[in-house]
């Protein structure tokens, strides 16, 4: 199931990020390399009524400093993140689109829980404060497709534009769809990624109910790991054909080689090693990559007992004896689990690893767990050439999406 013959090769020429680690891609990557943990006490309304009071919050991101009043009326926080990251990626790529090309420029953005701040504020207004009306733009603000629409408007992109929502795999599915569009020629260029702003009282209350939240920090793959920490942010990337990028002399950050998807068809919350392994194999096959070519795995690594154990089993199933040579890490230990944006924050980590030959670490690691016996790059980054890497996303509901990348 490799790429269709004659298909175009797809490269990344722009990257933008907002996360708890930094408000642009260089700051995000610098913190990842330095092993900075962005998880800490949350600042949000009614925090005292939450049992899980920690998360990875982009505290320095203040919408009022970046957007005017009429824009803020239309942008939920996740749209603000998406637009900020898209502007950074667009400026870096500087793609020089012609009007004709803009008609075939795509936008695909993943989000799991859209408009959470808008839901929270509006429900408070009508239920708690007993008000009889909400802001007139609540509907356009909380549409799952709002970030994709606003990015298309901001940059005049008039081709295939839509949102993808597959829980914690949303960003990987979105980047994968954009990759397909560019590879097939259906789009000339694509802006793709994920955006999520779930750090609201209501959304955190919902997560609390599942009882898988850590009370302090997230310790993926470590013995004694106590669950996940929710994060927020966006990662947005510019994808175009290698021919186009080379012809205009663009800096190529990496090549997206392949994309694999699968469904567990099993449980709504419990992961499956078989489903995960099938998605990894599909990504490798699609990219024409042999398992031994992969040096770095950016793991889904949520820090729950079940995910990390199952993901280890899946990697062992796919890579066999090669698994011990892999450098694996879960950067969620630093930027938290940003749900629909998770794959995008992690895609930025993979671009950094490919570009600089540095494996970002899994921080907060305390002691080995025999069920997670891979080299998970504990606590400190490692210098290592990375010709090829994969980025895993295994969502609730058993929806799996794996991207395979090669060095630019």
């Amino acid at each position: 199931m490799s790429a269709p013959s004659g298909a175009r090769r797809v490269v990344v020429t722009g990257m933008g990020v907002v996360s708890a680690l930094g408000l642009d891609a260089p700051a995000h990557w610098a913190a990842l390399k330095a092993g900075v943990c962005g998880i800490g006490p949350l600042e949000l309304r009614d925090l005292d009524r939450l049992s899980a009071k920690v998360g990875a919050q982009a505290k320095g991101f203040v919408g009022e400093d970046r957007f005017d009043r009429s824009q803020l009326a239309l942008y939920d926080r996740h749209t603000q993140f998406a637009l900020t990251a898209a502007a950074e990626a667009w400026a870096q790529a500087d793609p020089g689109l012609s009007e004709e090309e803009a008609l075939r420029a795509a936008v695909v953005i993943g989000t799991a829980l859209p408009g959470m701040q808008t839901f929270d504020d509006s429900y408070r207004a009508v239920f708690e404060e007993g008000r009889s009306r909400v802001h007139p733009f609540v509907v356009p603000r909380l549409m799952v497709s709002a970030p994709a629409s606003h990015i298309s408007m901001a940059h005049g992109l008039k081709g295939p534009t839509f949102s993808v929502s597959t829980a914690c795999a949303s960003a990987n599915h979105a980047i994968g769809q954009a990759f397909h569009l560019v590879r097939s020629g259906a789009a000339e260029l694509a802006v793709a990624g994920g955006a999520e702003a779930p750090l609201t009282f209501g959304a955190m209350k919902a997560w609390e109910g599942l009882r898988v939240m850590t009370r302090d920090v997230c310790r993926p793959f470590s013995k004694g790991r106590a669950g996940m920490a929710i994060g927020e942010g966006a990662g947005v990337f510019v994808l175009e054909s290698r021919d186009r990028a080379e012809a205009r002399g663009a800096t190529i950050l990496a090549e997206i080689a392949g994309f694999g998807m699968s469904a567990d068809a099993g449980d709504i919350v419990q992961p499956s090693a078989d489903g995960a392994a099938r998605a990894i194999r599909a990504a490798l096959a699609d990219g024409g990559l042999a398992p031994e070519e992969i040096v770095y795995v950016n793991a889904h690594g949520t820090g729950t007992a079940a995910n990390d154990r199952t993901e280890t089993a899946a990697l062992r199933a796919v890579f066999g004896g090669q698994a011990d040579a892999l450098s694996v890490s879960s950067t969620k230990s630093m930027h938290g689990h940003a749900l629909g944006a998770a794959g995008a924050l992690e895609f930025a980590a993979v671009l950094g690893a490919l570009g600089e030959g540095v494996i970002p670490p899994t921080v907060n690691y305390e002691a080995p767990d025999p069920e997670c016996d891979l080299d998970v790059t504990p606590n400190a980054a490692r210098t290592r050439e990375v010709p090829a890497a994969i980025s895993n996303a295994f969502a609730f509901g058993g929806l799996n999406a794996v991207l395979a990348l090669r060095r630019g």
Partner: protein
Amino acid sequence: MTDAAAVSAADAADDEVALEVIRIVAEQAVLDPSEVKLTSTPDELGIDSLGMVEAVFAIEEAFDVSIPFNANDPAQSEFEIENVAAIVAGVKRLIAAREA
């Protein structure tokens, strides 16, 4: 395990906490309360981790207590779910702590 754990639901007739916990657990397991024993384990009752999260929620609502149950790693919870008797004992401790 206490001796009380060896008795059946019928024998817990004068224990309101035990009866309510058994009712909730039975509903979760889609069983008649008479089929749930104090010695029954979640496994025996066919209650998986998601089912246990729901049962714990229902118990919290019924008794107005907050149960420190960690679904991520139940073995590391401060709340025992080994069997129905352990759950009942834990709920009684939480009720006592609330009223203290």
